């Protein structure tokens, strides 16, 4: 992607807090209409990157461009084009839903008649219309998050930055939330979001896997899966934890991950190792009910990339 085409261009940004290097030389580009996911464990640097993109935190070095505008040099020009929703959106809890929307609409200088129409439209999409007159403090967690999104979208931003938008939100609200995001993508809005949910990561157009302030890998979910070395076997049985420990160090095993009642085993060659693992487990007194090759998930890729040191 040529730099001038990117909706979001991040090149070699770094930021330290005291002695901690929160973000180190991070670069990525997001095309218009993409949903770009920043995935990683707590402390990986996701929030710091988003805050720098939003212009509320200055990077120590590097360059940031939104829609071709240098965020550091001309933050006032960038602001009307972007919207940033922190993990906890700042709603005024003793103001009603409608009053919150009106307040943010005025701050972003949305013209009078557009305010009503767009507010109405967004409220409907978020399913919040019946709650217009309710105080924001009396909404449920999911509804608050949706109201935050409505407020963040009232000025029709070109770029939307979301920091863990669905953390602590019930599944129904999460589904509504993603429906709104897909709708936005259709209308050409570029979305950069961070998430700790792996299922949510799979919904993104592209992903950056972050660890300790660095991007470990950056591709589409399919591309990341294809790039994972070796193959993945899912071993099911009555004592997954025991089998997990029993398989450590077996020939051809490159990684192990306990996933509920399964053990995900990364091996160099699935066809050859599957019978070997079954025999090895049987010799140690385990009776696996099934061993089969599966598609790796984002979590498996993460573990494959980082080893055991950074389980998300």
């Amino acid at each position, binding site marked *: 992607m040529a730099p001038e085409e990117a909706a979001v261009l991040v090149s070699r940004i770094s930021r330290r807090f005291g002695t901690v290097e929160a973000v180190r030389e991070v670069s990525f580009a997001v095309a218009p209409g993409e949903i770009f996911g920043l995935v990683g464990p707590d402390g990986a640097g996701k929030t710091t990157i988003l805050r720098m993109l939003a*212009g509320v935190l200055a990077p120590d070095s590097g360059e940031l461009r939104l829609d071709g505008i240098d965020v550091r040099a001309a933050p006032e020009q960038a602001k009307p084009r972007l919207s940033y929703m922190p993990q906890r959106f700042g709603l005024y809890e003793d103001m009603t839903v409608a009053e919150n929307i009106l307040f943010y609409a*005025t701050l972003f*200088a949305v013209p009078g008649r557009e305010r009503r129409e767009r507010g109405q439209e967004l409220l409907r999409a978020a399913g919040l219309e019946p709650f217009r007159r309710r105080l924001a403090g009396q909404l449920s967690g999911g509804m608050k998050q949706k109201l935050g999104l409505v407020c963040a979208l009232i000025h029709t931003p070109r770029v939307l930055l979301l920091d863990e938008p669905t953390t602590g939100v019930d599944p129904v609200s999460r589904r509504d939330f993603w429906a709104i995001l897909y709708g936005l993508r259709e209308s050409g809005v570029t979305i950069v979001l961070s998430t700790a949910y792996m299922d949510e990561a799979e919904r993104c157009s592209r992903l950056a896997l972050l660890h300790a302030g660095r991007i470990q890998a950056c591709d589409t979910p399919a591309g990341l899966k294809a790039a994972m070395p070796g193959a993945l076997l899912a071993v099911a049985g009555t004592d997954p934890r025991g089998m997990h420990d029993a398989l450590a160090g077996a020939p051809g095993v490159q990684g192990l991950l306990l996933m509920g009642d399964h053990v995900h085993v990364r091996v160099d060659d699935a066809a050859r190792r599957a019978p070997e693992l079954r025999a090895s487990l049987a010799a140690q007194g385990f009776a696996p009910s099934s061993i089969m090759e599966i598609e790796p998930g984002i979590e498996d890729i993460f573990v494959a990339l980082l080893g055991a040191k950074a389980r998300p």
Partner: protein
Amino acid sequence: MFDRLQAMLMKEFLELRRDRWAMFRLVVPLLIQTLAFGYAATFTVRHVATALLDLDNSQASRGLISRFVATGRFNIVDVATRASEITRDLDSGRATAAIVIHAGFARDLANGQTAPLQVNVDGTNSNTALIALGYISQIVSLYESEHLPTIRPVSTMDAVPAVELSLAERPWFNPGIEDTWFFIPGIIGTITLIQVVSLTAFAIVREREVGTLEQIMVSPIRPVEFILGKTVPFFLIGLGDVALVTAFGVLWFHVPFVGNPLIMLLGASLFLLAALGLGLLLSTLSRTQQQAFALNFFLVNPLFILSGFAFPIAAMPAWLRWLTVINPLRYFLVVIRAVFLKGVGITVLWPDLSAMALLALALLGLSVLRFRKSLD
């Protein structure tokens, strides 16, 4: 610019209106403090617990004692029979002052000799002790002058009249030396300062804590617009405070208001700007409301003590006197007392008014600069 400021102001007043307790919190403490100060803050000493030991037990000694009782300033709590009882009364705190009339008092007085009289006061509270001693010496000297042998040459032509100094006491501006006249105007400044500084600091720190501050800062609003939006409501509340306590002082405590209300308004406005600057500065130094609370506490007491509200600045050591120069309350107290009691105008008050203007400018400027940085 105007739209965004208007949005901020609308929001502030909306929040204030929704806050059911806001009016209560803003008005009730103000009135209670004014009442408490109006009645309690006084330098007058009354009903001093006094122990008495009359070893002379004569008509003269009883006459002196009745003088003490008649003033109403002394309550005789113990009539002792020996010196050890006096010591016990002072030690236990039962008595603050002890008057001992030694044997031979009446005889010496009649002979025109020095009559022995002893006064012990509990100096723990130095102020009360000093004032009580003052009363006692007044009473004694009056008594003394009445019992001096009045031997005067009556009709000698060549007699030289004795030189007499006559001290005419005429306290200006407060002829009755009423303490409330001194304290009520001072309370206006003190209470307004405390209220406005803490309101401002807490309001901004709360937005930071809740996360709305970050949200607002990603909008195209400028820090100056945000700060104006946050401070204008508190400026108005502060003016309301001043008006309320002034009205209360004039109507309830009958403190005269002889000056020009416009000068009072000017002084109050400059003072409030400085107070807002101080509150804003506090908010940039605190990440949480607890920190703001601690800082506020740390700041308000010295501001109060170093203002001249109760303790004269002229009596402070030089380095403390210098510290009072940057205390806006110091100047406002001068202005407000002058306007209330003296009725003087700008020609006299301009140095204090300009000092407040300078302080307001410096504090507001500094806090706006710091506010930008504190967002990181």
